[in-house]
């Protein structure tokens, strides 16, 4: 098993009801696996699925990217700075 840190912001933070949490996943799990687990744990996240981009260790990543122990997986809703 590997442990990854899930991080939520803005709308995903509100939908998840938390700023972050730790997930235990099987070795070789991908970003998609972590997302599925997040949607399962927090059904309110599901409607945001299409709008979310995922960053692993602060780099925007595709859903098939593999995860490793200690990765930070951030669910980023659409952004607007300035």
């Amino acid at each position: 098993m590997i442990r990854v840190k899930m991080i939520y912001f803005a709308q995903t933070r509100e939908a998840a009801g938390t700023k972050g949490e730790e997930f235990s996943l099987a070795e070789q799990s991908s970003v998609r696996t972590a997302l599925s687990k997040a949607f399962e744990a927090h059904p309110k996240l599901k409607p945001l699925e299409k709008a979310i981009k995922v960053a692993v260790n602060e780099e925007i990543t595709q859903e098939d990217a593999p995860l490793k122990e200690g990765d930070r997986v951030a669910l980023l809703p659409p952004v607007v700075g300035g």
Partner: protein
Amino acid sequence: MDDDAGGTVLFVGTIRNQTNGKEVKGLEYEVYRRMAERQIAKLEKEIRKRWPIKSMRLVHREGKLKVGEVSVVVAVSAVHREEAFEAARYAIDRVKESFPIWKREKLRRGRYAWVKGTPIQNYPASDRSISESQTNPREIVRPRTRSLVEA
């Protein structure tokens, strides 16, 4: 300030009192700080490739801000004004679309509404090699004037 710079463009973004005719009392910013600092370093690297600028600084605030308060500052110096204007314009545009920042408007009766955003844009793959030793994002995002980054 660099002695060989002939001009510095300073953009200061402030909180407006309305949006689409709706009264706005203030804004609350949320920032993925760790990622935003990396994005600033990447942005500076990209800008330096495209324009011969001398210096740039970018500061974005987080937390609750009132109408009229400063939310973002971009400063770019260059030998000539053209590249300083272009680079500063480019920098503020990227802040809007490429930075992990979210904001919600404080409306009347204490209600809040998230401002509609766009999916965060990635930087070119060639910039993935950037390391924190090449730049000092902490200095860029946290200048001496602490009040600008502390809500």
